[in-house]
């Protein structure tokens, strides 16, 4: 009796499933396109694999580091700034089409001390304090230019972006990022 009930419920569930397939057809068939910089953003967030150079004396180094850590923890006041946190990249999004609509032809991002640019393909940007992007030649299909930034330690930092029209600054924007908490977006 019980198994008959369960069989009839299974059959009913299958009928419901068919009805759902009809109703949800547009959702089942929908092909969503990933945003253009999704992969770059993910890769930027993957920390590089750690490389050990300790060799066979690694246990000595580990013990020394552990002792130093114990000393630091017992001799220093504990505060969040003393904690070394693994750097987490953040992305500043710039929409070139919106800027072009305002006749802005160049944007320049300036970093404060303790913050650096991060790029897997162009590792050299880490050394730069500012990055400039000329909007004139950017295709209309590109609606997002991401700048990946990373701070040495947690805390609030101000990033300045200047917008230019024919070489003249027409607008300044300050982006406040609480590092290690949220993604900043403008």
């Amino acid at each position, binding site marked *: 009796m019980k198994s008959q009930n369960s069989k009839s419920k299974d059959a009913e569930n299958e009928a419901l499933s068919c009805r759902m*397939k009809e109703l949800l057809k547009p959702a089942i068939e929908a092909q969503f*396109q990933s945003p253009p910089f999704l992969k770059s953003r993910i890769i930027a967030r993957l920390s590089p694999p750690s490389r050990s150079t300790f060799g066979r004396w690694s246990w000595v180094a580990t013990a020394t580091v552990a002792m130093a850590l114990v000393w630091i923890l017992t001799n220093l006041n504990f505060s969040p700034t003393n904690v070394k946190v693994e750097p987490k990249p953040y992305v500043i999004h710039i929409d070139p089409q919106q800027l072009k609509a305002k006749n802005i032809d160049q944007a320049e991002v300036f970093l404060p001390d303790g913050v650096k640019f991060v790029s897997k393909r162009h590792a050299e940007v880490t050394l730069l304090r500012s990055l400039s992007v000329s909007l004139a030649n950017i295709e209309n299909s590109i609606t997002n230019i991401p700048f990946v930034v990373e701070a040495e330690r947690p805390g609030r930092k101000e990033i300045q972006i200047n917008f230019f029209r024919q070489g003249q600054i027409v607008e300044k924007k300050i982006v406040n990022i609480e590092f290690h908490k949220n993604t900043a977006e403008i």
Partner: protein
Amino acid sequence: MGSALKKQDLQHNSELNTLVIQAKQGDRDSFAKIVELTSHRLLKFCIFICGQKQTAEDLVQDAYVKAFRKLHQLQRPETFMGWLFQITKNLFLDQLRSRQKEDQATIDVDNDLENIISCDPTTDIEKLNSIRKILLQFEPDERLLLVLIDIEGHSYEEAAQIVSKSESSVKSNIYRIRQEFIKKWSDS
């Protein structure tokens, strides 16, 4: 046609398995290719469970980053997709819990899907929008089941593994959720 599709699926799966094995050894380029191959599917799942483009994209990013960091724990490369969905589901529920704690649990159901996603131009946006709005009326764990089984096409067994429940409980829950969905659809 069917066998051609199956052959394509098999090729895709075997390519994915190879990439997962390489990525497990720390190869970031292989992981980048995995993202390329699978992100559209994960994004679709996230858009339907979150209902918002930005939240969905953030969830996709977080899920891949977590997957890369935990890849060494994955025992069978062929289970990668299910494992990735499980990571995404856990992150989604964790984020909801933390937002509820911060009293920021807001879901914007008024935004039209047309404005928040870019999809195939032949897609019936109006119907997609109705589906999304009805989905958002369900509890997150109910929504997850519905999207996993009836949109993503996972079996009851796969869905049970992803949501960490028994297959029988998944079957009885989806029965009730489907009935409710059909009722809400007729009422709308």
